[in-house]
Structure formats: C-alpha cells, structure tokens
C-alpha cells in the first residue's frame, strides 16, 4: 500500500531545501502510483460531468425548451368586445364602453403578494384567494382577471406597483365592457352578463367556455351568447426575468361579437316601462301578424350594469333578498290565473263546438248554482239576460259558467291549447314557463283523480288550476284576433315568421268575439275608461284571484293577497297590428290594467301616424296635415 520510497537524503538540512536543490531530485517518482490515481479520479469526474450534460441536453432537451418557453413567453389576452344589441329601428339598446381591467400573470405570481394586492385594489382577500385557487388547474399562461372597471385610484395603484420589484404579476388590459340602459330599461329581455360560474362550466350549455370568461347569464345575452360573444385574441410577448416586454412575437386579434337587432321598439318599450312605473307586473306587446315582440316589460326590475362584471355580494343580496323577485321575467315566467281574460277563449270554444249561438241567453242574478254549489258573478246585482256580446262586454261570469258547463273541461282545454295555453310559446328567451291548462287527462296524470264537473265552472272564468304567462295570453289573444293563426313570438329581428298553430275557424265566430271585445272598450264595457279616439281598440279585462299563484305563495305581504289586474287588447279590430297584455299584480281589478295597454297601443298608432306624416311630407303633393306631436305619456294613477 505504501508507495513512498525510502528517503535517501538523510543528513541534509531539510529545513532549507534552497541550499541544496538537488536533494530531492531523484525522488520525484515516489508517488507516481498516487498521481495516477489522481488522474483516474479526474477522468471519473469529467465522465460524471459529461454524463450530466448528456442527461440534460441530449436525452430530453424538449422538456427544458418548453420550460424555457414558459419562462420567457407571456400571453396577454385581447378580450373580444361583445356584439351590440339594437332595437328594430337600429337604435342602440346595449353598447360597450372602454375600461381597464387588471389581471394577475400567474407565471410571475407570488402568493405572498396577494394580501397587498387585495388591499390596494380594494378587493376582498378571501374572494381573491378563492379565485386564484379555482385557477390552480388551468395552464400557467392563462392569467386571472381580478378586477374589472378600474377606478382612477385602482389605475394609479396598478401603475405604481407593476414594476419588476414590487408586483410584476400585475398587468393592465383594455376591455370593452357592457353598458346597459339606465334604470333597468328592458332589463329582463336583454338579461345580463357575468363571469361563468363553476357550476355552469359543468353544464353542456357553457361547457365550451373557460374559467373567467364573461358569458350571457339571462335573457337575450344568454340566448344569443354564441353570436354576441366573439372570439378572444392573444398577444404573445417575450419577457425577461422581471416580466418586462422585450418583443412581441405574435398577435391573434380578437374577433368582436356580432351585433344583433331585436324586434323591440324602443318607443313602445319606453312607454310601457313608464306605464309600469311603481307597479308590479308585466307588459308584452306583439305584432300578431308576425309574432315579433315589440315591447316586453317586467317589474320590479334591476340594473343589469350591476352584473356587468362580477356583482358585489351586497348588491346580489339586495336583489335576491327582494320578496318580489326582481330577477324574474314576469312576462314569460309568471304563471298566474288569467281571470276573465280567458273568456274570449271560452267564447271561441263555445261557438266553434256549437254549444252556443247568437240566440243563447243566460240569466244572471248575481250568481248561479251548479252541482250543488253557488258560484257568484262579479256583479252581485246581476246582469239580467245576457247573450254573447254583453257577456264579453260586461264580463258576466254566469254566462260563461253556463258555456263552460255545456262544453265540459276537455273541449275547453282543446281550444285553449289551440290558442297556445299550457305550452311554451317557443320565444327565443331562456327559461320560459309553460303555464297550466287543466283537463281530465291532466288531472289523472298529476293527481291520479277523476275530473269533477264542478271544477269546470271555475275554469270557465279563468280560475281554478288555469295559469298563463303574460306572453302566452298576448299570443293567444292575438291569434284569435288574426282569425285563428297563432304566430311564434320572437325577439330576433332576423327571424322568419313561423306559424305555431292554425285553427280552421269560422270567421263569423271570430267576428262575434272581436265585436264583444270592442264593446269592452268602446261600448261602456269593463274597459271603457281606456278608449283611444280614432283607433278601433278591442280588449278584455281580467281580475284574478291568487289561489294558484305559486311563486308568491308564503309571502307575508298584505298587498300580495290583493287580486291581480289583467288586460289584453289588440287593434285595429280588423287585421290587427298589435296585441298587448298588461299584468298588474295586486292591481285589484282589470280596469286598472287597461290604461297600461291603452298607452302602448296609442303610442304605436301615434308613431305610425307620425311616420306616415313624414312619408307624406317627403312626397311632392302633401295630401295630409302634419301629424300630432306624440302625446306625453303619464302613468295612470290608481285611486
């Protein structure tokens, strides 16, 4: 083991080798074996190092190239603006406005910064932390938008802190954000947008979107989300270790969403909104010839701008905590007893089934007994001898009890379903309700019980289990006025009119019913206060009890127990152009709903006259005088 050769230079002064440099000369090979060992050791070290480089550089360099790419390429989202929403005349209902959003670049994100960022941007730390956690499964290059609609103070904070040493993960982006009409105009039709929720991502409708995407959540925004949403783009930048941009390597421009045009007429919409001011309920105006929805109002409303980004929890609580459910679109979702507005359908069924004719009279003494039970008429002193015209005009309950009794429930249901009751109208809005049209089959299916003839009597005046949505009632009545052609209601202007159902009806029967409805307004009937001079305005009042009012059940509000007022009307009498329904919840009587419909119908004809006047003024000989200025609409005050 010992390779050292014996020393031969004893006797020399070892302390001073300089005095005798030759003393060790022949001794240099004393450790040659160990030197060789050192050389082999060196070889081993070099082999180890080369093997390490082989491992990193040759065996799987892609792994590290990708890592280097992740390091140095930063993707900044270019968010596509949503398409605008226009009314039928091309006027803008929903627009965008430019704003700044701040996002966190997750490649540079440090968790310990989150507290200060939340504080600086006035965000709730727990919300923010939860959001960051939700993104943990997403690829790192996808940033998290943490605040929309930055205030000047937020902007100053971000600009002051997004440098490399403070919070390099902060990034400002320019975003076009939704701007909805103030005061909730058409809020329920338009709907609102919001960040897609975790639950929605699991549903097929939203499965194609990503965490953090802004999608339509209700109304048109949701129905036509795919059209409106556009395609987000991206800008890829090379950044250094401090996140500073060195160069742009690629831009995929965002494709803006498409603008869509609705059938809504802002003029009518505004009038309907004003008429509903301070009331609860809904208004729907249709063109019965095409099914185009001209106006749709639901009250109480909400401000969709609150939802436009991420709604504050206080606002959300206020909206969801409201006992009158402002988010409910009553025009398509309220399912209520139609009351006497059901009577034109009864008349149609009676005439078409042949159980009544012009000669059929009923005697009203303020009520009548059927199957051992007394049913009151709304007029306790009675209407006397009543035939069809008077029955509709005065809304005599006893007359229709008799009609119903003669028809039986299944024939009533047959004609009511022909008019569209008990089925969704198929309007292009999400979450439409279908209402209920009872029949003997319906009862067996739902209650496993036989239908009792006595139940038919209540249904005859639109009570009992019968429920409709305002839209259904407008479409049903409009179709009758059209002589038995029911069009599918729609909101997208670029839609081919579609016939839902066509009844083979006797035009004389239609004329009889329309004549009765004309009398309601024009011959001292229940809607007499709502006459419109110069317009053949026909309609029917309804006063409905709340027995089957499901969605308000359990409410402690005293007002909620008052009767609902309905009015359904159309004009003109022949070839109707507009059909309008007003639901005035807790309005006590249909006569209080009638002025709402009158305002809308009047606005329609005023506008028509004005447009014809302009048309006439353009043509060389002006044959007609200039039109009246549009009447200022004031809400009817109910005493």
């Amino acid at each position, binding site marked *: 083991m*010992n*390779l*050292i050769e*014996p*020393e031969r230079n*004893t006797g020399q002064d*070892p*302390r*001073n*080798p*300089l005095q005798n*440099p*030759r*003393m*060790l*000369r022949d*001794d*240099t*090979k*004393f*450790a*040659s074996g*160990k*030197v060789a060992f*050192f*050389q082999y*050791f*060196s*070889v081993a*070290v*070099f082999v*180890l*190092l*080369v093997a*390490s*480089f*082989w*491992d*990193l*550089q*040759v065996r*799987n*360099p892609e*792994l*590290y*190239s990708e*890592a*280097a*790419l992740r*390091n*140095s390429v930063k993707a900044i989202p270019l968010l596509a603006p949503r398409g605008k929403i226009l009314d039928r005349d091309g006027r803008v209902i929903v627009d965008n406005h430019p704003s700044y959003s701040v996002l966190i670049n997750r490649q540079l994100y*440090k968790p310990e910064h989150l507290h200060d960022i939340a504080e600086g941007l006035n965000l709730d730390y727990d919300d923010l932390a939860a959001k960051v956690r939700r993104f943990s499964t997403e690829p790192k290059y996808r940033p998290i938008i943490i605040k929309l609609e930055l205030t000047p103070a937020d902007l100053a904070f971000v600009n002051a802190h997004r440098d490399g040493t403070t919070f390099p993960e902060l990034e400002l982006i320019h975003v076009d954000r939704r701007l909805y009409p103030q005061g909730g105009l058409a809020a329920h039709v338009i709907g609102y947008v919001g960040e897609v929720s975790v639950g929605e991502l699991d549903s097929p409708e939203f499965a194609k979107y990503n965490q953090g995407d802004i999608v339509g959540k209700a109304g048109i925004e949701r129905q036509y989300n795919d059209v409106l949403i556009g395609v987000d783009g991206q800008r890829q930048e*090379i*950044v*250094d*270790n*401090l996140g500073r941009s*060195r160069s742009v390597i690629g831009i995929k421009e965002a494709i803006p969403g498409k603008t869509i045009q609705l059938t809504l007429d802002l003029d009518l919409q505004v009038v309907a909104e004003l008429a509903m001011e301070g009331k609860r309920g809904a208004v729907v105006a249709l063109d019965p010839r095409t099914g185009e929805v001209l106006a749709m109002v639901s009250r109480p409303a909400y401000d969709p701008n609150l939802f436009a980004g991420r709604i504050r929890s206080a606002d959300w609580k206020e909206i969801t905590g409201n006992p009158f459910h402002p988010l409910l679109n009553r025009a398509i979702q309220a399912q209520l007893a139609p009351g006497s507005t059901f009577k034109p359908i009864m008349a149609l069924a009676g005439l078409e089934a042949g159980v009544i004719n012009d000669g059929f009279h009923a005697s009203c003494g303020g009520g009548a007994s059927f199957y051992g039970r007394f049913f009151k008429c709304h007029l306790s002193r009675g209407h006397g001898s009543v035939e069809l015209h008077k029955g509709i005009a005065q809304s005599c309950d006893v007359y229709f009890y008799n009609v119903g009794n003669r028809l039986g429930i299944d024939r009533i249901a047959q004609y009511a379903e022909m008019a569209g009751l008990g089925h969704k109208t198929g309007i292009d809005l999400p979450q439409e309700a279908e209402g209920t049209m009872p029949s003997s089959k319906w009862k067996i299916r739902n209650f496993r019980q036989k239908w009792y003839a006595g139940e038919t009597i209540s249904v005859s005046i639109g009570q009992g289990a019968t429920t409709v949505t305002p839209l259904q009632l407008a479409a049903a009545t409009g179709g009758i006025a059209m002589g038995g052609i029911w069009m599918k209601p729609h909101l997208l202007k670029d839609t081919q009119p579609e016939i839902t159902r066509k009844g083979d009806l006797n035009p004389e029967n239609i004329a009889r019913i329309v004549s009765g409805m004309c009398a309601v307004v024009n011959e001292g009937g229940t809607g007499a206060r709502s006459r419109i001079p110069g317009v053949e305005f026909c309609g029917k009042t309804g006063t409905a009890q709340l027995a089957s009012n499901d969605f308000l059940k359990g409410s402690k509000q005293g007002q909620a127990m008052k009767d609902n007022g309905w009015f359904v009307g159309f004009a003109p009498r022949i070839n109707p152009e507009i059909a309008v329904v007003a639901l005035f919840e807790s309005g006590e009587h249909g006569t209080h709903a009638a002025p709402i419909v009158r305002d809308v119908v009047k606005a329609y004809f005023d506008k028509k006259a004005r447009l014809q006047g302009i048309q006439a003024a353009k043509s060389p000989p002006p044959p007609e005088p200039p039109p009246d200025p549009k009447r200022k609409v004031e809400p009817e005050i109910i005493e």
Partner: protein
Amino acid sequence: MAQQYRSFRDLDWALIIIALIICCLGVLQIYSATHETAAWNDAWWKQIIWVGAGLILLYATTKLDYHTLLGQVPIMYVLAVLALLATFAVGKMVFGSRRWIPVGPIHLQVSEFVKVVIVLLVARYLAETKAEQLDGRDLLRLGGLVVVPMLLVMAQPDLGTSLTYVPVLAVGIFLAGLRWKYLAIILTVVVLAVPLSWNFLKDYQKQRLITFVDPEKDPRGSGYQVIQSKIAVGQGGMWGRGVTKGTQTQLRFLPVPHTDFIFSAFAEEHGFVGVVVVLGLYFLLLMQIVQNGTMAPDRAGMYICMGVAALTLFHLLVNVGMVVGRMPVTGIPLPLMSSGGSNTLSMFLMLGLVNNVRLRRFVN
C-alpha cells in the same frame, strides 16, 4: 542569457495555449451574457485586460525560482492572514459578504490569492517532512496552518472559497502518505463535524443545501437558480442556441450568467458539443498540470503542481456540478472563464508556478 532563452522556449506552451483558448471562450460568453445589460456590458473587455495582466503575472512568476518563493512562505502566510483580517476592517460589503479590499482603483478578493499561499505552504511543509508517512503531529500542524485562513474566509462569509483550500491539503496529504489510523480519525472527525457544523451555517447556506437536495421545494426562492440553470443547460440541446441566442441567458432568467453560472450560459448557447469541447480542454489543462508535477525536479515542485491540479479539479467539479444540479450552490467561479479579476489573476499565478516548476527541471 542562454538560460533566459531556454526558459522562455521551455515554457509549457501547450498549457498556456489551452488556457488562452478557454479564456477566449470565456470572454465571448461574458460578452454574450452581458452585452445588453447596463451594469455589466463592459465586463468582457475588462476580462481581456485581466487575462493580459494574468499572462504578465504568469511570466513574472516563472522568473523567480520557486524555491525562493518556498523560502518566503512564512512571510507570505503572515501577510495572507493579515490581509484576510484587513477585509473585516476595510472590506467592501457586497451581497452580505466582505471579501474585497481596495488596492488603488480596483478591489481584490484576498481569499483568491490566499489559494496560492496555501499551495506553497502545503508544498513546503510536506517536502520538508522526512518520515515515510505523516504522523499525527504533522497532521495537526499542517491542518492548523490551513484552518486559520479557512476560518477567516468562512467568517467573511464565503464558504465556497474557503472550501477550495481543502483539496490542496487533502491531495498533499494523500501523496505524502498517511497511516490508516489517521485516515480513520480524520474521516470520523469529518463525519461528526458535519452535523455539528450545520448549526454554524448561515440561514442562506442551509437553504442552499436543502434546495440542493430538493430544488422544486422552493422554485421561486433559493431553488430558482438551480432550476433556471438546468433549464438553460437543457434547452441548449446538442448544438446550442447560438451566441447571444439563449433565452435563459439573454432574458436574465439565469442568475449571474457571466460569473458563477457562466458555464450554464455557455451550455445553453453552444450545446452539448460545446460543453464536451470545453470540458475536454479543461481535462487537457489538468493533465498538463499533473504532467508537470510528475516531471518536477523535487518533491516540493511536485506538491506545487499537484496542489494546483487539485484546486482546479475541485473548482471544475463544484462549479460545473452546480450548473447541472449535481452540486449545491456554493458560488465559486469557473477558473479562466468566469468574469472577475482576482480569480483570473490567481489562476494565472498558479499556472505560473506550474511553469516555474517545469523550467527548473533542467537546472543543475
């Protein structure tokens, strides 16, 4: 006159040329890594100046017989210890460590020059030992002499540089011969000392050791350097990304790409092929130094050459090993490539010593 001519011709030109090729690649890499930075964009031509100064120093070192130098070891040793003490008084604080003392317009890292003194110290002590094998007293004496500057450097604190003194001592003792008994004692002491010394390490040093074991533990913190270095090396691939084209280097994800991590930057831009070439050059350099040691006229000369060889090998192993994640981050430079005056000059001084030994083999 004749002797001078002979000495110039007989310089180890192979060694010098290999060293200069490595220096050229180093300057190129320093340029590539720093040309776009504001603070370091003059590092490459400064490095050229240092290499030039190093060559002059190398030549100057060969002029004085190394036996004369060995005779001055006690004085040099005392001066080295005093200079190390001076760093605490006048040292410039950089990155939490006092390593530099101002000499005129430049700052010199004393611990780099102490390496040369340690090499000479070990060579002289071992050459003077008469016994076949070292005994305990020798070990304690020589170990004590080396430990004093080591502790001073460690206290700066600069663990990496202080550890570079150990291989000089270790290889010297190995060559001189050691009884198994002492080897066993040394190993026992080291094994016992390692857990104890944990308590004396600074927090950042502990952190470095933890992340050496598991760099992914703290990828944004202390593991960052190792991860970024491995990414840089890995994405170099077989042929490299080209000079000034390595994103890790150019975008500064790689820490200090012109000093401690210069080989990482080189590997990114020149690939596996470049790495093998440079490691091959280093291997030739090392073998050339060893060769000079085996041809030395006496034990002292051999110890000097082997001391330099041990130190160079240790630097390579620790620095290059760190670049590929096989060694903890200790912050010692790569000889001849890393930017910096003190380490360049001290390396050329040592190459000068090797040449000095070579030139004396004919002296009669």
